[in-house]
């Protein structure tokens, strides 16, 4: 082969390599700047399990490279540590010990605790971000909450949409109400047992407690992330409200109902619509809606009184 041709071929190798690299990067979705818009997300910042709002919910347009941390940083003054991975303080409120109890910032996207850090959580249009500053002495991990309604039913979670399966275990009227509310919220209803479906369990606690996900409620907030307990008394399960420290502070009546959410590891979230009696279950089903669930981790209802859970300022609080 002539030497000139060899040299020409050699000189082309880097150019071809660079061109191939650029083509690969272009295919992978590379670009300059934050990228195109992907819609709007909402940001809520509260303290003490949603008891007090620190920043009104803001709708924020996000780009394809945006993360939970970037949205937070654009809206509120924050301080971080561990190379920007961990939020130390928001608007001057710093993770600390108060009255001997640990407080820190936790975030939820579409009502679910995130398995990855805020700096690594990519966003999609419609996502609902909620930062809460809370006492975590009773439960280090509240894996799911109800205050982001209609999420996760409307837009899914962790980057994908998921169907919703209502598992009715008694009281058809309450089940019908739940299905109707979910339908109105934009959920895609599926048959019970559908793969990857968000489960909504509806029925008296005596029938729900056989479900492994729901049964975690009886093991306390550390296991379930739910600050409530059903205790068998005089042949019936009665609902008890717990405070921030996980201590029972209020025994509710036989007509009390509960709406709560939990999640086991990477399994789809499980919502619980239950009560001690049919009246309680119906009252709980009636709670499903943005107005009555907003900023709540879980809600109990007793004689038309809505009780946020955990119950603020209990004996332990």
């Amino acid at each position, binding site marked *: 082969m002539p030497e000139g041709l060899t040299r020409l071929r050699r000189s082309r190798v880097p150019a071809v390599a660079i061109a191939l690299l650029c083509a690969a990067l272009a295919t992978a979705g590379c670009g*300059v700047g934050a990228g195109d818009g992907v819609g709007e997300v909402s940001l809520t910042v509260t303290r003490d399990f949603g008891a007090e709002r620190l920043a009104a919910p803001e709708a924020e347009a996000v780009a394809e*490279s945006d993360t939970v941390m970037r949205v937070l*940083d654009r809206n509120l003054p924050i301080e971080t540590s561990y190379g920007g991975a961990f939020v130390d303080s928001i608007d001057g409120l710093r993770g600390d010990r108060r009255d001997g109890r640990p407080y820190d910032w936790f975030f939820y996207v579409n009502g679910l605790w995130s398995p990855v850090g805020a700096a690594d959580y*990519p966003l999609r249009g419609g996502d609902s971000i909620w930062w809460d500053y809370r006492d975590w002495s009773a439960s280090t991990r509240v894996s799911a909450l109800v205050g982001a309604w209609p999420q996760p039913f409307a837009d899914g979670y962790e980057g994908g949409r998921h169907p919703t399966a209502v598992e009715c275990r008694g009281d058809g009227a309450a089940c019908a109400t739940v299905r109707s509310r979910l339908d109105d919220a934009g959920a895609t209803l599926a048959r019970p047992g559908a793969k990857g479906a968000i489960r909504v369990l509806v029925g008296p606690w005596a029938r729900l407690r056989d479900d492994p996900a729901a049964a975690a409620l009886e093991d306390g907030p550390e296991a379930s992330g739910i600050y409530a307990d059903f205790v068998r008394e005089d042949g019936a399960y009665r609902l008890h409200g717990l405070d921030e420290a996980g201590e029972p502070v209020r025994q509710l009546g036989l007509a009390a109902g509960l709406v709560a959410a939990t999640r086991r590891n990477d399994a789809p979230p499980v919502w619980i619509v239950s009560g001690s009696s049919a009246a309680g279950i119906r009252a709980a089903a009636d709670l499903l809606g943005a107005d009555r669930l907003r900023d709540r981790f879980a809600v109990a209802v007793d004689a038309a009184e809505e009780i946020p859970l955990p119950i603020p300022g209990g004996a332990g609080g």
Partner: protein
Amino acid sequence: MRSPFAYVSRPRPLQSASPGAAVAYLGALVVVAFLYSSPLVLAAAGIAAALAGHLAGADRAVRAALRMGLSLALLIVVVNALVVNRGETVLLRLGELPLLGRVDVTAEALAAGAVIGLRAAVAMVGFAVYSACVDPDRVLRALRPLAGRSALTAALISRLVPVAAADAARLREAGSLRGPAAAPLGRAALVRRLTAGSLDRAVDVAATLELRGYSLAPPRPSHVAAFSPRGCGKSSNRRSRYDRRFYATGAALLVAAIVGKVLGADGFHAYPTVRLAIEPSTAALSALIVLSGFAPLRRGRRRVGDV
């Protein structure tokens, strides 16, 4: 050709000082670099280390360390930008890449990488000045009372770089003697060979030390004086008149760095957005650090009998 990092004896204060004093001074500069993230303070520490090297006559070592340190800093900036997605200001989106996942190049990750790189460069300049200006034999003698049974450790500490530098010079010379038709000896090949043989060479030195009685009790001073030309064995362990200067400078640097840290002189945060606050304490500390670079300055003529 001698490696730029090889020790050369010169009649300068830093070379004349005892190893402990030189290490205290140069070590303080490196400690400051590891304590602080403020680019101003890091730059001041780098300038001070380079200035100290210049005043000690180790310009080649400083230049070589700067070349290597800045190359390493550039590499750190690139790696940090690729592996850290944090930061508010996205400059470039590289999409999903194998092993790395989603890659967003942010201004904050670049700044954080630059600070880490600058820190590494300062440490390299400090170590280069140490290597070129502190006699490894004196370091070895100073280590003997502390690590009498650890010849290998002592040899690694004091001899690894000088031996590697000498080996590099020999290999380079051998490469150049292969004739004009031979392919030039690449730097990568040289580094590979040195790295592969560095531990063996250090073990060789350690074995030699053992054979020469490194672990035995030091001989009596009168005996050493009797068998040493002009009493060198005795005088090499004697304190230098420059020791106090270097100890004092090192201590002052450390105290000032700790006080400055408490007063908030380290006002740099890369995440979530780059924040650089230059307080009066930052400026004062930086000025003090730069001034400390003049510690090896020679004042007037040496008096007879001074070391």
